[in-house]
């Protein structure tokens, strides 16, 4: 009697559980078509010499990959990306980290976090296309408002100012893009780090206060170790985001501009061969996409390893 009741119960639960397929099915179908298939399709194309999407080509195996790794323009693009990313990450995470220190300081107890968070986040809301044109215009060499302001400040102190060609000079273009990118993203990193600090139980801080721990001790022994997972998360997401940089340099610096070769990122390089009329080589561009992916993957894994070792 009891046995049949249990059996009936299990089969009923089984029946319920099978309903899971109905809930997941639409996602799985669309996911297979629009996410999984394109990734595999790109992989297949990377082994072919297809020139234009829709035309036929033949299998060339690793020829495209060899070409990517031996093309000095690819390495140049990779170097540009790493340079821009390096400046960007130091500024963006450095600033976010400092702000996090200020707002989590147990002695100062700074107020107004809600307002400051919103203001610092504002630049991140705007489409990169709009940001690109806004700054390209503000930073215009001869007629831009930015140089006018600097000129006025210099003038005030009786000095002369030779306008800097922020986005036209190969020496400054990369740094300028990195600073704008940091301007756009430091608020985002700050909010994430702050969320980590706010997730720490009050008890720790109270116990530390009772023990008479100084603010640096609290920061070093409680705050920092407990937000390490979030630091790692922020570092990896900004790494992936940074290596994918496209919109800002692509729209801010014209191809005719002499600084173009110093700001061409790997994704701009991919775009050139993937989609630009005249230079399209679909097979080659697919190999570029996979090389970029493998680089991102490697660096993420290394980053994870380094962080985890520290934790021991």
């Amino acid at each position: 009697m009891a046995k049949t009741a249990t059996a009936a119960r299990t089969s009923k639960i089984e029946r319920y559980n099978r309903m899971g397929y109905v809930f997941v099915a639409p996602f799985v179908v669309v996911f297979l078509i629009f996410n999984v298939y394109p990734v595999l399709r790109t992989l297949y194309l990377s082994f072919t010499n297809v020139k234009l999407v829709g035309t036929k080509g033949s299998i060339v195996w690793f020829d495209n990959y060899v070409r990517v790794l031996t093309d000095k323009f690819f390495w140049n693009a990779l170097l540009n990306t790493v340079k821009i990313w390096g400046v960007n990450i130091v500024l963006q995470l450095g600033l976010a980290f400092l702000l996090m220190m200020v707002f989590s300081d147990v002695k100062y107890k700074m107020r107004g976090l809600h307002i400051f968070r919103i203001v610092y986040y504002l630049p991140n809301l705007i489409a990169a296309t709009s940001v690109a044109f806004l700054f390209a215009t503000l930073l215009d060499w001869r007629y831009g408002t930015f140089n006018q302001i600097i000129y006025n400040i210099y003038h005030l102190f009786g000095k002369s100012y030779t306008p800097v060609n922020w986005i036209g000079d190969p020496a400054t273009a990369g740094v300028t893009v990195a600073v704008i990118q940091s301007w756009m993203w430091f608020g985002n990193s700050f909010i994430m780090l702050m969320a980590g600090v706010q997730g720490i139980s009050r008890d720790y801080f109270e116990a530390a206060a009772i023990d008479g721990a100084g603010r640096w001790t609290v920061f070093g022994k409680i705050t920092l170790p407990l937000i390490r997972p979030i630091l790692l998360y922020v570092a990896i997401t900004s790494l992936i985001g940074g290596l994918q940089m496209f919109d800002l340099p692509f729209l801010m610096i014209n191809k005719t501009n002499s600084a173009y070769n110093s700001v061409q990122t790997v994704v701009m390089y991919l775009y050139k061969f993937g989609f630009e009329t005249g230079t399209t080589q679909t097979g080659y561009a697919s190999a570029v996409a996979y090389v970029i992916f493998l680089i991102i993957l490697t660096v993420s894994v290394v980053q994870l390893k380094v962080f985890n070792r520290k934790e021991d």
Partner: protein
Amino acid sequence: MNTVGYKIKKGILYVLLILLGAVCMLPFLLMIVNATRSGSEIVSSFTLIPGSHLKENWETVFDYFNLFRGMWNSLKVGVPATLLTAYFSAMTAYGLAMYRFKGNKVVFGTILVFMMIPGQLSLIGFYNLCTTLHLVNSYVPLILPAIAAPGTVFFLRQYVLASLPPSLIEAARIDGAGELYSFHRIVLPIMSPGIATMAIMAFIGNWNNYLLPMIILNKNDKFTLPVMMASLRASTDINANQGAIYLAVAISIIPILLVFAFFSKYIISSISAGAVKE
């Protein structure tokens, strides 16, 4: 003990924080002021006092393109895509969290893997697929894939596990409610704060998206706002008048600022949630 020194230091910190805030706002302020000045005024000097050439700048901009059509197109893509993401992500998340079926772990594992894969990896294959299906220059490839949003599903799954007691669904079953009925009548209302948060972020991401629409759309009348803004570079009339550039940028920014004004709380909390989920 040293209260004066403490107060001074705290004051300095506040000044620095406000200065940083000013750095965030200044470009927007300059944009708004310059949008009302003529090209020659902007070129000759800098001021924070608005000018009187808003109307001329407006005419220059709208002689070249109709930004409101770009906004309308962005809405036509963004609103359905956001609704699809919200509804189907909630559905998938609930299915993964509440039902033990074969393949559940495989689906969830694949979602985790695809959250780590950069979008560029699928770009060429995706375009290739759209060509095959004759979907180039259509909004379908910009809307339909929104049904499968791995990041949103991941977040909402955690949300279901944290906020939905399974006993509630069992009670509904005993009352004879069907599974889909329970989902629509019980689960969705409970999940709505989480869904709203993700939906707003999905909408902003969609609204600001540039690379994919640029690749898929090639007719002017189909352009979404960012693609239309990018075509600004080609206009000699606008580029001859900085005031017009500033105005075009200002108009393109206003809708998203309005969204932010209403939903800033949700937006900030969703970024925080993104960090804490780890």
